[in-house]
């Protein structure tokens, strides 16, 4: 009986150990080509995470400068480099930073990174995005430290501002597939259109009572057009209006030709 019991135990262990390790194996599997393609598409729909690329420099390697009323920050290296990028982060840590604004070490991100709206991204899109980010070539480029000029900005002001003024999108249970719901998801969360096209209040939060109504003091001191309906159809448009193209059945969104310099200001009105 003893031999039989031992044999049975060994058999059980032989069966259970592979079963127990299945989730780990599944997690460690390389992403499929379809998931990478989806991640690249989501990446593009965010605007290519462009804030993390200095024009004509390595993609996603960070270092782009943003000046604000609180000081100066530089975008982070989001290539999969293990020392200077996100190569040492878990998927969950990257997703937490993206949607909740917390680094792996617990440090709070300055909301130049629009995590309050990225919080509205669906989990599946974020997972695919992370898979894609891991697939690009790693670049060893140390992050530049931020220069905060407001006393107690991160310990007091920022948490209070986030609680009092920052609107927060909520993630959908699934990715909207089509129609107005899909458009809303892309505009409000993934493409984070409101971050530039919505004017800001004196607290520098987006004024969502005037959602997408244009921003006279956008990034790089640019005038960001009003893309609400009246502006789309109005007879007298004096400033560039992407809505005309966006509402065309043959719409093509503008892309790289808008780039003007390697330094963007955020929020520009207070710099």
């Amino acid at each position, binding site marked *: 009986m003893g031999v039989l019991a031992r044999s049975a135990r060994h058999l059980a262990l032989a069966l259970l150990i592979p079963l127990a390790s299945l989730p780990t194996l599944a997690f460690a599997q390389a992403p499929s080509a379809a998931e990478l393609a989806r991640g*690249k*598409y989501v*990446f*593009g*729909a965010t*605007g*290519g995470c*462009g804030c993390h*690329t200095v*024009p*004509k420099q390595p*993609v*996603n390697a960070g270092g*782009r400068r943003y000046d604000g009323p609180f000081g100066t920050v530089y975008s982070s290296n989001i290539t999969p480099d293990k020392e200077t990028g996100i190569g040492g982060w878990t998927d969950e840590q990257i997703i937490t930073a993206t949607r909740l604004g917390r680094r792996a070490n617990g440090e709070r991100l300055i909301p130049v990174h629009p995590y309050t709206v990225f919080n509205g991204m669906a989990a599946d899109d974020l997972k695919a995005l992370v898979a894609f980010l891991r697939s*690009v070539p790693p670049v060893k480029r140390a992050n530049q430290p931020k220069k905060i000029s407001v006393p107690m900005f991160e310990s007091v002001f920022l948490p209070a501002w986030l609680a009092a003024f920052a609107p927060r999108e909520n993630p959908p249970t699934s990715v909207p597939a*089509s*129609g*107005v719901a*899909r*458009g*809303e998801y*892309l*505009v409000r969360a993934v*493409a*984070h*259109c409101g*971050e*530039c096209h919505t004017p800001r209040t004196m607290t520098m939060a987006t004024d969502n009572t*005037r959602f*997408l*109504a*244009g921003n*006279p003091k956008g*990034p*790089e001191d*640019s*005038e*960001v*057009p*009003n*893309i*609400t*309906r*009246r502006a*789309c159809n109005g007879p007298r448009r*004096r*400033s560039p209006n992407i809505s005309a193209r*966006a*509402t*065309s059945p043959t*719409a*093509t*969104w*503008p*892309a*790289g030709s*808008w*780039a*003007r310099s390697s330094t*963007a200001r955020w929020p520009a009105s207070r710099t």
Partner: protein
Amino acid sequence: MGEVIDGTLAGFKDLTKADRLAIARYLKTIPPIKNKIGK
């Protein structure tokens, strides 16, 4: 946003026609707001 998407691996230009139209349809649902931008 446009000024920061130069040199990336993908961008808004890569959105499918269906997604561009979905965006347009959503934008048309937003109430018109007067907010003059530009001179």
